[in-house]
């Protein structure tokens, strides 16, 4: 089972002599009994759907709770005016993450990656990267295979569900997947991708799933922005040749343990963390009252 561990994933690719993305594509297609070309077409559809979702953003729209909407536009204007502290590229990533999170909250069509609540992380780094470096769509599809391969390992060894293991399993997993994809796009090795995954997961370990009023809005939308920035950070470190002192598989196992020890109040019940703040409780009471 190549998705049982990062070690298996990397050694399967090495043994097959195939690039890692192709190894993931072929193996997963075979397992689901579908043609590799059909799998590729489906992944391409996911990429297209990410772009369409990004383009569907409406700055005037608000979520049903009214807590979310319009923020991504503020970030975009700030970045485009050259007022962002860290420059236009970073500003675009932040705006992109917020945009997708807001689209999701406003019931637009999005691509869960790995979940709907974390759908902003991957497109937020991939789309601005492709624009900056002139990456082809074929390469972006390959990067999605890389992301999905590492995501499968995390789902199998730990969890990608906030209700099971907290936000570390949703935004954390999305961030790790995006980090691996960035390392791939920037010419890194599979070992560097594994390091990026380990670093990204370590940085968000323990993150609680504490949605205000139980809605995928606060703090979820803004956490997509930190998930994207964390992916960039982990990828930069890994590409510089910095390795994770703890191997990726052990980090994933640790994340699982942390998830298991999180109290129910911090696992998507809307009862702990930010959701239990007085303002959050007042909001929940008025919204559902």
């Amino acid at each position, binding site marked *: 089972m190549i*998705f049982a561990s990062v070690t298996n994933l990397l050694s399967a690719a090495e043994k097959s002599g195939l690039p890692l993305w192709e190894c*993931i594509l072929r193996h*997963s297609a075979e*397992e*689901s009994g579908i043609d590799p070309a059909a*799998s590729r077409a*489906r*992944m391409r*559809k*996911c990429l297209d*759907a990410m772009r369409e979702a990004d383009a569907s953003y409406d700055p005037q729209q608000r*979520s*049903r*709770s009214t807590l979310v909407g319009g923020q991504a536009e503020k970030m975009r204007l700030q970045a485009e005016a050259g007022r962002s502290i860290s420059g236009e590229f970073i500003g675009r990533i932040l705006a992109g993450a917020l945009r997708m999170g807001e*689209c*999701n*909250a*406003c*019931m*637009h*069509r*999005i*691509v*869960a*990656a*790995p*979940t*709907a*609540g974390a*759908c902003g992380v*991957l497109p937020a780094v991939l789309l601005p990267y492709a624009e900056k470096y002139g990456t082809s769509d074929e390469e972006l599809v390959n990067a*999605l*295979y890389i*992301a*999905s*391969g590492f*995501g*499968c390992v995390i*789902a*199998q060894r730990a969890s*990608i*569900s906030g*209700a*099971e293991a907290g936000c570390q399993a949703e935004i954390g997993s999305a961030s790790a*997947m995006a980090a691996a994809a960035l390392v791939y796009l920037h010419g890194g090795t599979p070992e560097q991708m594994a390091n990026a995954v380990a670093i990204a997961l370590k940085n968000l370990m323990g993150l609680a799933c504490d949605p205000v*009023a*139980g*809605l*995928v*809005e606060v703090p979820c939308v803004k956490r997509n922005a930190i998930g994207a920035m964390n992916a960039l950070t982990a990828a930069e470190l890994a590409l510089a040749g910095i390795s994770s002192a703890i191997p990726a598989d052990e980090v994933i196992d640790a994340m699982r343990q942390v998830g298991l020890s999180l109290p129910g109040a911090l696992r998507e019940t*809307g009862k702990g963390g930010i959701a239990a703040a007085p303002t959050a409780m007042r909001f929940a009471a008025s*919204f*559902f009252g």
Partner: protein
Amino acid sequence: MDIFEIIGPIMVGPSSSHTAGAVRIGLVARKLLARPPVRAELLLHGSFAATGRGHGTDRALVAGLLGFEPDDTRIPDSFVYAKEAGLDFRFDTVELRDAHPNSVLLRLWAEPDGKPMEVVGASIGGGRIEIREFNGIKLRFSAEAPTLIVKNRDNPGSVADVSYLISRRSINIATFQVNRSSRGGEAVMVIECDTPIRQELITAIRSMPDIVDAVGINP
């Protein structure tokens, strides 16, 4: 492990369990009814009742009843489309016993004054669902595979009759459950198959003795 459960599904937000899963429950219920519903009562349980409104669970369920898929951009406006389609619906909350937190009891009518069909569906995470109850009989299936649901009077021979008809068509059975309300009462078979179920098989099953009804749903 399917990689398209990691990148994907493509779905209308905000929540795979409370929105995409809810659409699928509605859609499977519509397929079980085998006709477009004209009237529906949707009774929300647990987290569906508590946070469903903010997640669009209500609009998602109605969208499913109209036959929309989870990636259909008409989902947010499903109430408007329901009016156009002549579907009269009503929401309420309910306390179901031993139910999954994301559950809904659907009562559907194919004719305004007929007898309703009752289905309990649970959204179990990541957009995946399970049908847990059908017309008062406990059962469990995901509707991810072609599934045959056969209602019969609990007399000897029905299971053999149905499996014979299936095997004659070279359809491989993946799983087979038999559930009944009481001995000699009404029973339900749930048969998951590896290949799509055609109407011709349903008609053949319906013509057998002791069979009350049969419906096939394909993903």
